[in-house]
């Protein structure tokens, strides 16, 4: 970071060091969200460039990795926005019946152990449904994944999206609705199997 601020010949070496020391962890993070390996590499490269452009705003007292991660996530969200296919809930044929059905199924869920075949089947269906969700609503899917895997709270989501608390609550609600539509088949299988 010092080389970044000072400039000079140390800059190139510092950039190589940044790539060598942090590419792996950022690439893993990127691949969690982006299926395409080449796209994931591009996102990490873009992140490093942004790191360099913003390095002067890095507070030395902060931890580097969370800062890098935050820039990577912003970069991913920007990329999703650029390629947003803008699939609305209307396009996805959200019906009240779908929502009602999931509510009914999840309400009667009991923890019955599943056999191996059922587990595999559920995973496959989830993968398929999730892939469609990621393809059509990448921002919503990414935010849900980050909440589920990293435990983001409202404040962190608002910061990530650059939205007000109210707009963030609305976005989270939209995430849930969209997830229900795209994951309806999996919900039915998961809760149906448990309840049977």
């Amino acid at each position, binding site marked *: 970071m010092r080389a970044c*601020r000072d*400039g000079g*010949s140390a*800059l*190139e070496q510092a*950039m*190589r060091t940044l*790539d*060598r020391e942090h*590419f*792996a962890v950022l*690439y*893993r993070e990127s*691949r*969690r969200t982006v299926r395409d390996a080449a796209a994931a*590499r591009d996102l990490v*490269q*873009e992140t*490093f*460039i*942004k790191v*360099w*452009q*913003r390095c*002067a*705003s890095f507070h030395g007292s902060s931890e580097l990795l969370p800062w890098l991660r935050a820039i990577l996530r*912003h970069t991913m969200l*920007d990329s999703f*926005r650029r390629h947003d296919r803008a699939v609305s809930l209307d396009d996805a044929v959200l019906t009240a019946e779908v929502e009602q059905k*999931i*509510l009914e199924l*999840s*309400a009667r*869920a009991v923890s019955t152990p599943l056999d191996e075949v059922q587990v595999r089947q*559920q*995973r496959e269906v*989830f*993968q398929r449904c*999730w892939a469609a969700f990621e393809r059509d609503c990448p921002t919503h899917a990414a935010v*849900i*994944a980050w*909440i*589920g*895997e990293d*435990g*983001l*709270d*409202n404040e962190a989501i608002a910061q990530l999206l*650059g*939205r*007000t608390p109210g707009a963030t*609550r609305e976005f*989270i*609600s939209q995430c*849930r609705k969209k997830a229900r539509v795209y*994951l309806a088949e*999996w*919900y039915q299988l*998961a*809760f149906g199997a448990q309840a049977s």
Partner: protein
Amino acid sequence: MSDQADDQAWLDALAGRDALAGRETAGVRAEGARAATLNEARALRAALHARTRADELSLQREIGRDEETRAALLLERARRDEILAPALKRTSGTAPRKLTGRWGALLAAGIAGLAVALVWTLRPAVEAPIMRGAPDAIHRMVADDPAALRSQIVSALRDAGVEPASYERFGRAGLDADLPRPLTPAVRAVLERFGVPPPGDGVLRIEIAPRPGS
């Protein structure tokens, strides 16, 4: 339970804060959150954690692949974005061969030194044209008192609800700020007031250099 409290309980359970999901969350009383909401969120959380990603071995291969080329591409991009000084043009389009051994290292060091000296000597006397409004571009400005102008912009942005970060780089006064998307009228007005085009990626980057002779 209101929809808002229900969504909050869903969010907390999805994030693994189940203890909160059943009690009080973010100021919203969520006691008695429907079991359905919690089941829905917990099932989704479990599925997300269990989903099969690229297996570890192939991930390792992807990470280790073309490490040298990857670094070269990064540096090339950095030069294109004017973060690094431009490199001399190569006569071949292929990736550079890896140099090994003591002589290779000496030769590489010699060439690098020569390249730096040449680039420094032959650098253009006039600054490269500014790419205003291009994605990830830094908006460059000139002022008699860069710090004072930056202070005015920072103050105006803060009044518009944006918290910029200030910095100094190469003698220039800079600031970065993540702008709300879409831009609020207040932020748009600030940008217009200072003649700054709205950034394409939502990240405002300004650098103010001292006016020559000031």
